[in-house]
């Protein structure tokens, strides 16, 4: 019995080594392509660096400058607007998922699920350019439609209007149903035991009550997951602004991410750009933690 016992003692170590060896490629790539650039970015944020020459240590200089940077401040306000809009606009996806879940007819549900998923395969860039075309004041769909309805005075310059531009960018998500998020919610609802719905039906819960007291609380976990994604995307994203408005008119749609990109590639201020990136990272971390804390408190209450 001694030999098998020795083998049994060795086995966990062997398995540990084997396990480590299997995760090594992923870990290595993760370290090189995710963690190294992140720490390098943090390091660079304390330097003045043009991307080529020797970097000059400036301590907290970049962050001090950021505090007094009016463009950055405008960008933060714009980001707050986009963040608030993104959180509010998470709800249509929840409602759509619940409606889809309630369709009992399997074939119909399948058809709707497919319809949900189709937009996912259209690249976001194509969708953006399509919206840009629709917003065009001279030949775009919206102004043409308004004119066709006999209200030419109501035509707008859309993306060219500093007061409208942010709303235009938010409206681009219409009808505000995100496929990935919808599938996550749907998965969550499907994992709930059938008996819960049956019990609710027996208790005489109506559709609104079922939604508020059962479906919504039951997908709270999925909501948290999607919320983190939404916060991160809204705080650090800038692709739409880069393609459609370049942050304009003026700085009306400038967001911190785009300002970071411009600071690096248009101003050659890589250190400053890194400090914007680090600030954004910290802000999105804090807001995510606060929202998680809020959920935890709500659950405990």
């Amino acid at each position, binding site marked *: 019995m001694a030999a098998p016992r020795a083998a049994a003692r060795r086995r966990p170590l062997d398995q540990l080594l084997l396990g480590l060896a299997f995760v090594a490629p992923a870990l290595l790539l993760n370290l090189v392509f995710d963690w190294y650039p992140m720490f390098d970015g943090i390091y660079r944020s304390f330097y003045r660096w043009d991307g080529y020459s020797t970097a000059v240590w400036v301590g907290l200089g970049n962050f001090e400058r950021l505090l007094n940077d009016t463009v950055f401040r405008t960008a933060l306000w714009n980001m707050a607007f986009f963040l608030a809009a993104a959180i509010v606009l998470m709800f249509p996806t929840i409602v759509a998922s619940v409606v889809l879940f309630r369709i009992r007819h399997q074939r119909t549900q399948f058809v709707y699920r497919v319809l949900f998923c189709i937009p996912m395969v259209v690249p976001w860039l194509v969708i953006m350019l399509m919206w840009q075309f629709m917003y*065009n004041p001279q030949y775009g769909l919206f102004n043409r439609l308004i004119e066709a309805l006999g209200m030419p005075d109501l035509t707008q310059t859309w*993306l060219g209007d500093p007061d409208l531009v942010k709303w235009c960018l938010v409206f681009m998500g219409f009808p505000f149903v995100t496929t990935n998020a919808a599938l996550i919610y749907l998965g969550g609802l499907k994992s709930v035991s059938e008996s819960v719905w049956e019990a609710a039906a027996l208790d005489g819960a109506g559709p609104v009550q079922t939604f508020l007291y059962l479906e919504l609380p039951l997908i709270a976990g999925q909501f948290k997951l999607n919320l983190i994604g939404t916060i991160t995307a809204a705080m650090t994203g800038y692709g739409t602004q880069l393609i459609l408005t*370049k942050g304009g008119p003026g700085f009306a749609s400038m967001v911190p991410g785009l300002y970071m990109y411009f600071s690096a590639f*248009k101003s050659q201020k890589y250190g400053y750009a890194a400090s914007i990136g680090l600030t954004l990272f910290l802000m999105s971390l804090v807001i995510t933690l606060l929202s998680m804390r809020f959920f935890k408190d709500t659950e405990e209450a």
Partner: protein
Amino acid sequence: MSALRADLRSLATMLLLVATLAACGGAPATVPDAPTAAPEAPTAAPTAAPEAPAAPTAAPEAPTAAPEAQPITIRIMTWHGPDGNTAYYEGYKTLTDAYTAANPNVTFEFVYQPLDGYKELLDTQFVAGSAPEIIHMQPWMINEYANKGVLHNLNNAYNSTSPYVDGPAWIASFAGGEDTFAGVRSSNKFGGIFFVPSDSSAVLSIGQPFYYNKDLFRQAGLDPENPPQDWEQFRAALAALKDAGVIPIAADNGRWIGWSLGQVGYQFGERYVDQFYDAKFTGDRGLEFYWDKVYLALANGQLTDAEYYGDMLSLWKDYAQYWQEGWTGTSEADAPNLFMTGQAALLQSGFWDFQSYSALIGDKFEWGVFPVPVITSATSSFGIGKYGAPAGTQDYGFTVNAAVESDPALAAAVIDFLQYMTSLEAQTTYVGIAKSFSPVVGVPIPDEIRGFIAPEALATAREVVGPSFIEWGDGAIWPGLSQDFLLGNIDQAAYQAEVAASSQEGAKAYVESMLGPDGFQASIAAAQQTLADLQAEGASELMIASQQRTVENLQLRYEMMQTYYTP
């Protein structure tokens, strides 16, 4: 344990596979030129130094020697791709094919990236040490990358003979000769020449004119055969077009901001900075010090408020009322559509778009081109009333990656190809295909683009300072600030103060870096070393004389900066 070993062996294989896949990813799109072309240039620059600017080195090439027979792949990066809109790519391709036919060991790959994202790709390639050997660059890119030390100094190659040109030096084959490179020498800290001109001419004033719709001109009661020549006529024409319900000018939220500023701004402030400097830095030799003069004036706060700014800025703002509504939401790609679909009467662009616009417009409407109208004293007492002088304005073309210096055979092949490309024969073939201008003496001008040459009598302005205090500012900020100014969201005084502060800060950083140990002192030492090497090698008198001029010029520039900079 043997099972574990087997597992580890398969894991090692997997790791190798992953590493191989990772290495394959992320390369920029290339257009393989020859079927035998290797996917990665075998001699590609492993030593590109992203850090400390490299000193200009003696050219390692032997320009007159035929490239050795080892297989060489030269990658050429350009924004002119095989997309069918222009024939530039076809023109370059014809030349590379002909070169490969004569030198079968040399093949070419084109790296195509539209101007949008061009610099971003280039930046990452330089940092990664994978930038192509030959890189097409715009003027500002050349200055920037040359100062960063990542481009090969072509000074010695230019002053050597070329197997494709009769005469003592390659440089003499360019129209206007060595004098036309004076300006570009002063734009970098090495006093060197870092590019081979392309698609341009230093002896012609090739403007970036307006394409105009003659049918819409008629509709607005204007004579389409007599387009406006000065700004007053221009403004009247724009007003007439607007009154007729036509969009006068198609504008966009990208390059147009700089272009429109340039149309108005570079008609003010000829030799404006000369007042701050001693006579030896002005006059006929002034162009050699032009960039330093402007940097110094910006750094010293002397360009914060010039007397012509008021007129210049109010004229620019007035001009904006004739751009389509919502122009700040129109992209560069969308603006030409307004012209092509007959909604806008004018669109500014260069001769490079001539072929694609001809094809797109077809017979939808009658069109022509006219130069940007001049601002005379009738509009502003500060208006120059003429165009920038053509002489001394070699400004853009193909640069060579400094990394080729580590491979003499590759460097020799690159230089030899560039010399072939700028031979009379190759250029004549090229302009015939691309319908472009040539920087080389004796190359004919295609008839189709003669209309793009500005009137000779008006093309005499030199060292125009114009709106440098705006354009030399922070690129992340000035375009947005300019939009706010043009839209009336901020007043002129605030706009002027903000852009001036931004450009002053950038200029101070530049001047201080040039006065630091890595600046002129290092450049002068390196240039002197090159001179000593040339003398020791028994190089030609021409090369030695040219290098002596470089050293003297650098010393003078250093002296000027030391004398005039007030921290």
